């Protein structure tokens, strides 16, 4: 089991406040690592550092052993790190299929001149991107929406659309920021089934508040509190960790009870 994503000692401060303090974790290939913790614990900030949106004050990020710290988001994406956003970032004016085709950007090789003149390579490229995008839509159960304009779709569908777009990029690392937030029970279950089928070659890092889903899906769980790691371990260990219960799970205790039954 090789480690794809290694995060070492990441810290960041905003105006003197330490938002994330010395966080390290490994995400192995084919596994799901969940990051949980109360609001404001620094989960999304951590994602934003790993994906290059924020520059950490200290720390390094490695992908398959290569130091990728400080690279801009698009360079990281081209290296195979894909993410979704807590507040949706879809392309609302485009069709679902076109949205997902953008996920193929890192594999597309035609030059600007070829694109302008519509040389045969462009048609082949379009066809290949389209086929990959359609298969990502198939895998996320969105095939029937392929030709709908994304802007008019429901929240749950758009959440899945973001995941489809990320899958289409065939990432090595997939960061999912609250994929089930705001989704109803049925949608949440669909997303859970989908994520389970995804893991394979990808290492998935998941931020999620739905404890049932986290406990069922994760290989490892990392608990953040006030920017620091409070605990880490297998779902069972986290569930019974008294510190975690006091800081966070207290409010979710019932859900966790349900989940363990």
């Amino acid at each position, binding site marked *: 089991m090789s480690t794809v994503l290694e995060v070492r000692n990441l810290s960041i401060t905003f105006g003197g406040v330490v938002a994330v303090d010395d966080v390290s974790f490994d995400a192995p290939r084919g596994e799901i690592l969940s990051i949980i913790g109360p609001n404001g614990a620094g989960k999304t900030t951590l994602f934003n550092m790993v994906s290059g949106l924020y520059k950490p004050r200290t720390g390094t990020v490695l992908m398959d052993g290569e130091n990728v710290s400080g690279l801009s988001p*698009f360079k990281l994406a081209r290296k195979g790190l894909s993410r979704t956003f807590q507040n949706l970032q879809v392309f609302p004016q485009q069709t679902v299929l076109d949205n997902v085709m*953008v996920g193929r950007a890192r594999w597309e090789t035609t030059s*600007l001149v070829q*694109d302008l*003149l519509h040389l045969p390579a462009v048609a082949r*490229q379009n066809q290949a991107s389209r086929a990959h995008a359609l298969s990502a839509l198939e895998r996320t159960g969105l095939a029937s929406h392929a030709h709908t304009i994304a802007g008019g779709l429901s929240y749950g569908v758009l959440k899945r659309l973001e995941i489809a777009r990320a899958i289409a990029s065939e990432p090595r690392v997939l960061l999912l920021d609250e994929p089930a937030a705001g989704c109803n029970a049925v949608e949440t279950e669909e997303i859970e089934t989908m994520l389970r089928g995804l893991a394979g070659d990808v290492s998935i890092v998941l931020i999620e508040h739905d404890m049932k889903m986290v406990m069922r899906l994760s290989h490892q769980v990392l608990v953040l509190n006030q920017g620091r790691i409070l605990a880490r371990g297998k779902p069972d260990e986290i569930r019974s960790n008294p510190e975690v219960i006091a800081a966070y799970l207290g409010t979710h205790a019932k859900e966790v009870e349900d989940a363990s039954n």
Partner: protein
Amino acid sequence: MNGKSELYVSSRAIGLLALLIIILPIFANSNYVIRIAALVWIMGLAAVGLHILMGLAGQISLGHAGFFGIGAYASAVLPARYGVPVPLAIFAGIAASSLVAYLVGKPILRLKGHYLAIATLGFSLLVGLAITSEVSLTGGPDGMDVERLSLGGFVIEAPMIWYWISGILLIGGTAIAVVLRDSPTGRALRAILDSEIAAASMGVDVARRKLQAFVIASVYAAVAGSALALMNGFITPDVAGFMVSVEFVAMVVIGGTATPFGALIGAALLTTLPQLLASFSDYQDIVVGLIIMLSMIFLRQGIVPALGQLFRRKSR
């Protein structure tokens, strides 16, 4: 609604455009009408270029006329002052325009919205200022004569010939804009239009793609500017003026930013209206201004998308 049928509709529209260009001279062959039609094709070409920047990539430029002026004055100044052959001067104008676009675009395309609009406006004011003040080269505010384009001893001067040249340029330019939309570059640009963060997080090099769109738009403008200078045989600094930049933006927006045909309709309206209203010259600007306002109030997405919706509703 899917990508394929959109490309299909667009290629049909290009066919229609070609048909219009071919049959128009049969019905209206006065030099006056032909000259105005050629002017529409030329302004349309520049507007289609701006559509690539505004409609695909979502970046506004109030400096499009700056590149229009660079193309026009390169074709005028180089042959007249340095004896450069006209065809070579045209290519020098295109090269200069794209080089300037690259150098100017690199720093200012980091800006967004209003800031980008003001920065591009500043650029076009500089071009206008340079043209007006370099009197020994450009003739200053009075303008200058432009040497005619001649190929193999044949001087290209007749409006009818310029009608065909500009018509072919327009068809080619529109076809390029149409196919660009459905290419990796086009998808990257449209992604930038909708969400720069999402585009970058999918591996789109946002800065480089915006710069490409800016340079492509500047090439369209330079080609159109050259054509205008060579057709008219005379050029004034107005071509690079602020009002022309505003007109280009208005053409793209009125017609509908989403499609190059919107830019064409906008160009046709804003080029022919002043001619039609010439006899009411006192009120001409008011009428044109009113039409811009009304179309923005009632057809906010632009004329072409509004018509498209109307037809779709009817055909149901």
